[in-house]
């Protein structure tokens, strides 16, 4: 394991509508919810191995604060990167991501704050196809559609993930860490090239 700086810490906040899968995404990332669904995610500090080096991530979930703006502001303070979630089966959550969450994080943390757009519950698509419910499957938010949107929003990356099966979960946090490193030129060389010691 490469050496890490205790104070070069990336604070990632996961935002999105209620019940769109934030908590499960986080719990599945920290390997907690294997075979079991937890109701809440406790903020935690984890080491994340980027291959060449290890970065300390501080993960936060805004679940339970969806209705409390003042409380969210406290969570947003000093955030380094955001993961904006929507539910692929609910179109309105994508709308909220565009019109509620994105402007909110930008107004609180600056226009240039890096963020990743994530479509949760991607396994639903497969399930609907398997059950011959193609018509319903068409109602889901399509990947192409969101890719265009993500480019327009200025998202660092876009993923569709399934926390239930652990698909793309790691990539989401890898991308958000890299998005943060991009903004920190002073650290970028250290971490990506493994020069840091």
């Amino acid at each position, binding site marked *: 394991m490469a050496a890490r700086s*205790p*104070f070069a*810490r990336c604070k990632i906040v996961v935002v999105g509508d209620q019940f769109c899968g934030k908590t499960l995404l986080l719990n599945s990332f920290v390997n*907690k919810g294997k075979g*079991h669904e*937890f*109701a*809440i995610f*406790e*903020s*935690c*500090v984890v080491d994340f191995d980027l291959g060449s080096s290890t970065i*300390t991530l*501080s993960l*936060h979930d805004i*679940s*339970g*604060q969806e209705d*409390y703006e*003042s*409380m969210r*502001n*406290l*969570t947003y*303070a*000093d955030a380094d990167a955001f993961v904006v979630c929507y539910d692929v089966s609910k179109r309105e959550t994508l709308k909220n991501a565009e*019109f*509620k969450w994105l*402007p*909110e994080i*930008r*107004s*609180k*943390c600056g*226009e240039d704050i890096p963020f990743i757009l994530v479509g949760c519950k991607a396994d639903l698509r497969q399930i609907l196809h398997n059950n011959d419910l193609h018509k319903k499957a068409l109602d889901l938010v399509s990947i192409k559609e969101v890719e265009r949107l993500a480019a*327009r929003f*200025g998202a660092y990356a876009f993923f569709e993930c399934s926390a239930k099966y652990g698909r793309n979960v790691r990539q989401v946090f890898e991308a958000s860490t890299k998005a943060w490193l991009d903004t920190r030129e002073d650290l970028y060389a250290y971490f990506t090239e493994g020069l840091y010691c």
Partner: protein
Amino acid sequence: MPGTFKRQASKVWQSVRSIGHLRSHSTCSPVQEEDCHEPEQQSTSVREKSEATVKSDDDINVNVMSPQCDVELKEQLGRPRTMSQGAEDVNDAFVVKQRIRGTLSVGTLPRYQGTIDARQDSASSDLESRKDRSTAYGSYLQLQELIKEHDKQHEKVVSDKYNDEILKDFMLRKKRTKARMSLTEFLTDPRNFQGDEDQSLAGKHGRSISGKTDSEKKSSSSMFNFFRKPSQRPRNKEKHKDKSKSTHHFVAVSVSNSAKCDYCDKPLVNKDAVKCQVCSINTHDTCKESIGPCSKVSKHPKDKPPAGSLRDKKFSVSTSELSKAISFTVKDKPRPLSFYYGQNSKSLPGYTVPKQPPITSTIGRQRRELFHALHRQHSSSSCGSQPINEEMEDPSSQTNISETLSGSMESLDEDATDDAHYENDPDLVLKDEPESWSVMVDKKKKKGLSKLDIKRQDVIYEMIQTEKHHVRTLKIMQKIFCHGMRNELNMDPNIIDKMFPMLSEIIEINTSFLNALKFRQGRSVVVDKIGDVLVEQFSGENGERMKYAYGIFCAHQAEAVAIYKEYKSDKKFLAFIKKCSQNTLCRRWSIQECILAVTHRITKYPLLIEAIIKATKANKADYPLLQEANTLVKVWSNTFVFLGNSTTFYRIIIVLHSLYANI
């Protein structure tokens, strides 16, 4: 643009208005809602208004605006708008906010210090005029200072009155001592040098001697022990206790033949035995140093003034009784930092749980309640800083010798007990526990249960586990961060108090909640009923207490983080934080994460309760109770999260805090 931004813009608009009012030294007037009617013109007018505010700011205060601030602003104004159409007013609102933030961040903090200093000279004005002045300055911090000042004055009156009684008592006793034996007599008496001075003294004064003196004799050099006047002994004892944090209150007792020491398990007979008044633990006098902290710290007998009982037993009091009286007189002397901390870790004096619901329609009530809450927050720090009555102290050289001696001895003792104190705490130790109930329990027990029931048990288990983690986080804050900042960095206890407001109170609340939950869990593997515990916690007295403690904590969070960041530039502080985060108990959490975790916890209760409800069948006896707990906890978190919406007074505070938050 959708409503949220407009709301935001209007919020900024309102904040600008209110700050504008404040800045122009008028009294705080309620924000009129009619002003926010035209959202189209709003954004531009906001900008104008904010610039006007800034201008007036410049007039008042020269060092408010830094040149960088202006440059930054121009950049923001000139920056191409990256957001899609319709985002204009959001951007404007953002710019305005930035602007306000700039002025506030540079302006209010330094000015606040200056005014406080100036105000200390003119302490004669009454509270009402001060309140107005404070609102005119527009800083919440100032407001707090004012309230604190008021509290100090108030408490001074109370404690002065109280001191008189104790001092009278003290004087009488002192006279008596003098009449019996002068110092020269004492020094010339050869018996005093033979190691059993205490016994001879005890004989002369007709008092019983507590076991404490014996141990002190052993721990400090016995050569100088006789220099110590009997009046100083209990005081040192108190000081010692506060430092080592083992808040037992030992009294010498005679025990039956069968009694055993709770520490070494050997019989107590024929040895000096002591008993803690609080947790009623019996132990050898020699073993008492090794015993961990008192389990019932909160019910501190010394926090309650022993006014009535004192006069009745004036001359026939035991040493412990005397120590009570004397510890109160000496409390008013300037003490080492550790003394204040000792106060903080106990329950705050003068605290009563308000019976009324906190949100009422009148502004006056709310203000009073805020004062009350703030009073509680600061009473701990203000009660130790009374002016001293120097006349009572004998300024002889002997006092100094014994003081310096005991001081050095205490610091040695402290080092010995320091490491042990948090490793003994069962709540702090990291244990490997199964992550869910279904993993922990074997198949036999699960046999009769449906899938839903298992799910229910899982959530209940999760609730208890996460509550455990929460208590641990709180204790880490107290025992590692607070303690370290106080002892290693010698920081001002007021600053520590501001960084962790209401911490001891919150710990008390959550520990009792956790114990209730654990008790329920301990009764049987399958927790049949949990709703009643939840309802009890979130309603009535408990609920009010919790609401207050967390309300204050949340309201001060932004300030706490700001203070933390201010200190982060200090190398010594940074090294300390680094050292702490290497502690395995901390799980590499920093202070900021701990503070955030406390406020996060309250928002998680509704989620957990909802999850339990989901897994509970509607015909179960627990169901209505859970529903009740759910509504309670929702109303409860609403009340203090939306404190700002009810009155202008609160709104200004919340707005100021939200502005501070991003500094």
